[in-house]
């Protein structure tokens, strides 16, 4: 490593210092400021030129805990996230297998079509689907939101699963088939268990992208489907800026995501993640 980079071994510590400082400024500082806002004392406020709030209170957290809008939005976000993840995995598995293991005509065209939702901005997809959902009576409904979010999560899941399935030796599948296992048995006893890390990693990331998704959810679901990001939008985009409230909702939104993300980090290798996104 060091020979390749041409850096002296002791330079490693400078990288640590440099990266640490950058991360502290770019990541640590903003999160600390948001945390301070969430603990702001409404009695004293937090105005310029104070660098730190003059006093702290739990008022805004208590308000959030009592606020049924927020607890409902949290439950709704989790529910939609789970439904999107299940639907995405179910739709993705067969296609991922075909792309990874079967030669077929027009494979490149199919690959391109499956990646296409990544190329088109989400707002165009959402507005386009909106016109169809009006006719199907799916607009402003939870099923509508689940369906539109899945358009965005499907390409990534197919890529991650295909990359995982590609690594399963063909011999295993052929051996099972020649010993009399049908396609369903192969899927249940070989494909799904061996592709499990791909399912877990792809599933966790699908859940995250559903949980944080705003634009499509807002256009298809608002004002009747209020997920956490949609609620946060209300606090930030309105006429009155409510920083402490927004800060509390930010952490209610962020903490579950970070937990899920660090779980995904443990299962998902960087190269699989990069393969899922970086090759068009």
């Amino acid at each position, binding site marked *: 490593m060091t020979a390749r980079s041409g850096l002296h071994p002791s330079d490693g*510590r400078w990288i640590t210092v440099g990266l640490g400082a950058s991360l502290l400024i770019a990541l640590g500082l903003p999160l600390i400021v948001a945390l301070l806002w969430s603990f702001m004392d409404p009695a004293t406020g937090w105005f310029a030129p104070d660098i730190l709030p003059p006093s702290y209170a739990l008022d805004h957290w208590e308000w959030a805990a009592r606020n049924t809008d927020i607890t409902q939005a949290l439950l709704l976000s989790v529910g939609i996230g789970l439904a999107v993840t299940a639907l995405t995995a179910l739709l993705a598995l067969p296609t991922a297998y075909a792309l990874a293991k079967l030669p077929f005509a027009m494979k490149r065209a199919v690959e391109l079509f499956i990646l296409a939702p990544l190329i088109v901005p989400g707002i165009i997809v959402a507005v386009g689907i909106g016109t169809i959902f009006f006719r199907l009576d799916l607009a402003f409904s939870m099923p509508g939101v689940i369906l539109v979010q899945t358009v965005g999560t499907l390409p990534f899941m197919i890529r991650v699963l295909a990359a995982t399935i590609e690594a399963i030796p063909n011999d295993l599948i052929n051996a099972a088939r020649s010993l009399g296992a049908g396609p369903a048995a192969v899927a249940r006893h070989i494909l799904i268990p061996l592709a499990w890390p791909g399912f877990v990693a792809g599933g966790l990331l699908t859940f995250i992208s559903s949980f944080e998704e705003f634009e499509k959810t807002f256009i298809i679901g608002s004002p009747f489907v209020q997920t956490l990001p949609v609620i946060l939008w209300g606090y930030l985009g309105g006429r009155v800026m409510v920083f402490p409230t*927004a800060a509390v909702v930010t952490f209610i939104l962020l903490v579950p995501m970070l937990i899920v993300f660090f779980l995904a980090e443990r299962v998902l290798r*960087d190269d699989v993640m990069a393969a899922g996104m970086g090759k068009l």
Partner: protein
Amino acid sequence: MRRLPQGVVAALLVLPSGGYLALFFGLPLLLAFLGSFGLYARGGDGGFTLRHYADLFGTQAYRDGLVFSTYLAIVPTLVSLAISLPLAVGLAQTFPGRKLFNALYKVPLVVPGIVAAFIVMTLFDRGGLAARLLTPIGIDLPKIVRDDWAVGVIIATAWKAVPFMTLIIGGSLGAIQKDIILAARTLGATPLTAFWRIQIPLALPGITAAFLLTFIGGMGAFAVPNLLGPVYPLPLSVHMYVNAFERNNWGLVAAMGTMLSLISVLVLLAYYRTTRSLRTAYGGEVR
């Protein structure tokens, strides 16, 4: 049980997600494309017309919006690229705490755009923390939130895009065989020459893919420019929303969507040109 021909099996396997995307992605886009010409449109008389495009290009606010959307796609992407490239190289070195940093830098990936916008507000809006810290030492911070150059939007978008680009670029840098770099070094290339002439060209498909995806994200962004961007011009994404849900002008919305998709497709074609010429230049499969 009779074995089906492989082509039929593949078609059956592709059908669930292919059909899903055809129904909920392909069809809406096709309808939007036709609708932009007045065909099968909601609330239109169904005849072919170029009225919506005339409206789009004849209105100053929409023309400026198109330019502004492109600006919000290009500038944050270039800023992120300038940060991501050295970051990806740095993270590939050996240093204490590497594993921790490799996990931590990805955190903005899971932070919703709205939260990024909120963070920029708390730090850079008037009376934000940056102004509070800098005013005592005599630095007067210019307007960054809702400013003419959309600096706030650029900061928030780039903050979210850097880990994404770093991950993809790091992946393609890591996939390069070490022998090639060592060979270049043996032949007298300095580390910097080896980096620019060997690693960057070989990682170009990953770099351009990251560029493309960030570009498209910036161009279609709706929430962040709405919260942090200037009052004028508004990006086309915001005009789309307003015309769809407040003015019910679906033909114009379709024309705007088609224009934005067209720009995406042009950038995609440029991407394929870049990667194809690389494949020919270096021979074989280049990742």
